[in-house]
């Protein structure tokens, strides 16, 4: 085989190969090709996405570390800082859901650790294909062996992926002792072949503890710590940079198996050594393993690194240098430490029962040099390896949606259906009343309770979870010894992006903002994971660009910086592309946790107000999907000026303690939001709505909150809203134990049953 063929087999393009030869002024050897194949993979180099990512705003007064490191860092109060990032593990989870998801958790935790922060929370956004109805005889029995693999068919496969992924996150997150406090799960056929597993980790650190993934100072030592190196996941990053099609089965890397026990010791040992002034930089070994991490550290420090391959502790002594360098074994990190101090580092790791070895040193020549028994077996300029990849020549072209024929059945305007009162005589679909529709929506897996999921996650460990999963729009963590709290949320709706990627991107940002505002916290920064299909498809690239523009415009309007993120391309099979799916993770600061606002109705007699945009369309809603099997429709563009006003006014309302409860209106629309508010204490409401159209009851148009206020504070609330010029409307009063509307009613118990049994596996 020619060298070129070998390069192509490594996933490099001919153009890339030629660039390498021209720069090296020779042909690269096989090991060097391996290095390039990983460093230049889409997954590691962001070659197709970086020019679009530049569109995202990254500056802000709290930003201590923006994109470019293992995680972003924002300043909070009293020298406390928060580090956070999201990471995808989509392909590995599609192949082996349990281990794929578990190692995804491990990877993102080590990213946070690399900043010198203690991981304090995890969130997970999951997307699967629609589940088939569960045969009644299997309900409520739980899993048997993991992962269970009953039957055939796409619904069964989605079920297996779902249970496997949740079990994997539960296994890893629980064991490392980081609470999983939030996230979201939704189901749609678009994700049948490619499920999405995005995990976000949040860490806490003092300003002075901030670390970077950097190496410098000639002669300083490079340490490898954690687990031994085995033949896991060789070519993992290249695998993540290709479509998920049948033939890749042969090319599939060995499944990486996570070891959360080793990870937990690695966290504790690393936090110990972070106190040493001799620690210069640290970096976790993620995709690409030793072929990428040290090179990236050297690039940041403008130095070179030489490593001695025979020093690396192996699980299997027969491994070749090629395998060692390309291995993606989990639970490993690389440290750069001052020469002479290595012993004290090694000691700490060994105390925790971990491997720790000096594997190399910083050199002046800016190359990544691999030595084997003192012989150089590969040597590549750092600048070429890291960032030297030529940008592929791709151009986005608008999807046919902007003209031409639509790939989606588009529904113009509303459906003209009005839901009736009792018995549904006013022409409700199939003669049903709004309460039947509401129950059915609450029972859909995407909207229904995710208790089955989050009860498998330890969400109370570390004793900081003030608001945990299932209780509110965002989770809230306290910081021991401080007044302030940290609110976190994560989510996104691919269906919106499928219809209108620009608007979908904007909404992803705005919804995260709403979730934080609902608990009373001020949004301060964003991390995101952009899950898309193959970027060489111009239409996909176009939706990618549009989504980013939507996110960027919303973030800019709300003065929110993106401080970290992740791109996952190639989420498609031969037959199916995922929806463009941006997942937004957001952090908020609540100045005083005593000012937190609950989600649910608190007491009878409280008045219910809808705040924000008071009318809109039904397009893109879960309602359309459930009742019409339709994901189309028209999405109204979010009014970013209104969003700005909502931020100000919601914060002011919370600060003045005017809100007895708050919840944003999102998936499912107004009635679903009201029903969710009734579950906390079993309190119902008498609703005073004069519009019973499906748009009004079930539309998902943006920029809305439902809040409650004590009757004696009603005037104060209205005054504040008037001053801010934000529209509002009284929609009812908290009363009884049923939701009543238009002479019809349904008990909270009945609604809750529908909601709680939506995901019974």
């Amino acid at each position, binding site marked *: 085989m020619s060298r070129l063929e070998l390069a192509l087999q490594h996933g490099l393009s001919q153009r890339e190969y030629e660039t390498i030869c021209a720069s090296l002024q020779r042909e690269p050897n096989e090991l060097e090709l391996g290095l390039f194949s990983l460093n230049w993979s889409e997954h590691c180099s962001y070659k197709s996405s970086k020019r679009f990512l530049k569109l995202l705003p990254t500056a802000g007064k709290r930003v201590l570390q923006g994109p470019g490191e293992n995680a972003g860092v924002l300043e909070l109060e009293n020298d406390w800082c928060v580090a956070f990032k999201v990471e995808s593990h989509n392909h590995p989870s599609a192949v082996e859901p349990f281990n794929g998801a578990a190692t995804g958790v491990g990877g993102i935790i080590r990213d946070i650790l690399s900043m010198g922060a203690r991981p304090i929370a995890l969130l997970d956004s999951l997307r699967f294909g629609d589940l088939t109805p569960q045969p009644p005889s299997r309900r409520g029995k*739980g*899993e*048997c062996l993991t992962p269970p693999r009953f039957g055939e068919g796409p619904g069964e496969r989605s079920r297996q992926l779902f249970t496997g992924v949740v*079990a994997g996150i*539960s*296994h890893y997150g*629980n*064991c*490392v*002792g980081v609470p999983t406090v939030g996230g979201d799960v939704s189901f749609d056929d678009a994700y049948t072949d490619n499920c999405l597993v995005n995990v976000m980790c949040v860490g806490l650190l003092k300003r002075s503890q901030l670390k970077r993934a950097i190496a410098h100072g000639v002669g300083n030592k490079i340490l490898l710590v954690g687990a031994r190196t085995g033949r896991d996941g060789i070519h993992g990053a290249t695998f993540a940079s290709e479509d998920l099609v049948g033939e890749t089965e042969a090319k599939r890397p060995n499944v990486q198996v996570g*070891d*959360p*026990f*080793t990870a*937990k*010791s690695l966290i504790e040992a690393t936090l110990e050594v972070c106190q040493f002034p001799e620690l210069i930089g640290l970096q976790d070994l993620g995709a690409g393993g030793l072929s990428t991490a040290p090179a990236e550290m050297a690039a940041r420090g403008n130095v070179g690194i030489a490593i001695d391959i025979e020093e690396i502790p192996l699980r299997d002594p027969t491994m070749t240098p090629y395998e060692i360098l390309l291995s993606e074994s989990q639970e490993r990190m690389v440290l750069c430490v001052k020469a002479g101090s290595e012993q004290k580092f090694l000691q700490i790791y060994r105390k*925790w*029962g971990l491997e720790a070895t000096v594997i190399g040193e910083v050199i002046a020549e800016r190359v990544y040099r691999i030595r084997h028994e003192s012989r150089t077996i590969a040597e590549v300029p750092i600048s070429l390896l890291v960032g030297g990849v030529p940008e592929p020549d791709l151009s986005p072209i608008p999807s046919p949606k902007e003209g031409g024929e639509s790939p989606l059945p588009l529904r113009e305007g509303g459906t003209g259906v009005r839901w009736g009162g009792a018995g549904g005589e006013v022409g409700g679909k199939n003669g049903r009343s709004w309460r039947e529709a509401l129950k059915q929506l609450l029972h859909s897996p995407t909207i229904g309770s995710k208790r089955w999921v*989050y*009860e*498998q*996650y*330890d*969400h*109370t*460990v*570390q*004793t900081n*979870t*003030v608001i945990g999963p299932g209780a509110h729009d965002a989770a809230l963590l*306290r910081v*021991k*010894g401080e007044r302030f709290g940290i609110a976190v949320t994560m989510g996104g709706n691919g269906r919106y992006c499928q219809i209108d990627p620009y608007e979908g991107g904007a909404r992803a940002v705005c919804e995260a903002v709403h979730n934080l505002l609902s608990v009373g916290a001020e949004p301060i920064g964003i991390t995101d994971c952009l899950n898309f299909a193959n970027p060489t498809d111009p239409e996909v690239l176009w939706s990618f660009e549009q989504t980013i523009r939507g996110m960027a415009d919303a973030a800019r309007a709300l003065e929110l910086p993106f401080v970290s993120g992740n791109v996952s391309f190639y989420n498609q099979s031969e037959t199916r592309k995922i929806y463009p799916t941006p997942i937004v993770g957001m952090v908020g600061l609540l100045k005083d*946790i005593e000012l937190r606002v609950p989600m649910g109705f608190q007491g009878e007699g409280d008045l219910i107000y809808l705040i924000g945009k008071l009318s809109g369309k039904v397009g893109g809603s879960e309602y359309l999907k459930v009742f019409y099997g339709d994901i189309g429709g028209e999405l109204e563009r979010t009014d970013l000026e209104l969003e700005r006003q909502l931020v100000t006014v919601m914060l002011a309302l919370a600060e003045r303690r005017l809100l007895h409860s708050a919840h944003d209106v999102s998936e499912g629309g107004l009635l679903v939001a009201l029903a969710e508010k009734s579950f906390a204490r079993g309190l119902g409401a008498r609703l005073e709505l004069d519009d019973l159209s499906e748009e009004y009851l079930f539309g998902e148009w943006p920029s809305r909150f439902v809040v409650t206020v004590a009757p004696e504070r009603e005037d104060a609330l209205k005054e504040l809203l008037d001053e801010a010029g934000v529209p509002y409307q009284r929609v009812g009063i908290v009363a009884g134990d049923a939701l009543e509307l238009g002479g019809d009613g349904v008990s909270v118990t009945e609604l809750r049953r529908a909601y709680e049994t939506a995901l019974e596996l």
Partner: protein
Amino acid sequence: MRAAVVVFPGSNCDHDTYYVLKDLLGIETDLLWYRETNLERYDLIVLPGGFSYGDYLRAGAIARFAPVVQALPEYIERGRGIVLGICNGFQILTEAGLLPGALTKNISQRFICKTVKLRVENNATPLTHLFRYGEIIELPIAHGEGRYIAPRETLERLKRNRQILLTYYEENPNGSVENIAAITDETGTVFGMMPHPERNSERLFGTGDGLRLFQGVMQGPAGTPLP
């Protein structure tokens, strides 16, 4: 009074428990590395929750051989102080044979994290004397292997000696026999419980019931303060 919270590789509630003892109750408390064997100084030794050694094989199966656990029988025999195993700590104590019975996989075969109601079955112990007999309290659980089982004779003995301290109330989350959530040994100085009192020791997290349990230990049996 002086307390130790043992740190095994894989412990993850060590800092949480330390925080309650040290910061909320002001007890002099050490984080004790699992290789320590000198327990003389301590009036209370807590084996905290977590996944010691990854809970590989069986929860607690490897940790029971740790030096600190090997030193416990002597400590208990001499009546030196109180040993409290919470969650993983309970599992370690049963594996070590310091408490009767065994903790096995939840009947659902899944990990479960939620707040549960518990009934106080014996309030004449240092751990529970600040509760009323029959009182219903709330504590979080978070475990995959919390289903308590024991041979019939052992259960008879536990009941006869009133060694059952807490039972799950209304709902049995893991399938434990007799709804058992917490027990003590025959000496009344070794305690094991699946629920996490340290996770409900502040009003911020609910009723704060967990704190009374630690306060009980601090005040000593029947209110006599420990040294």
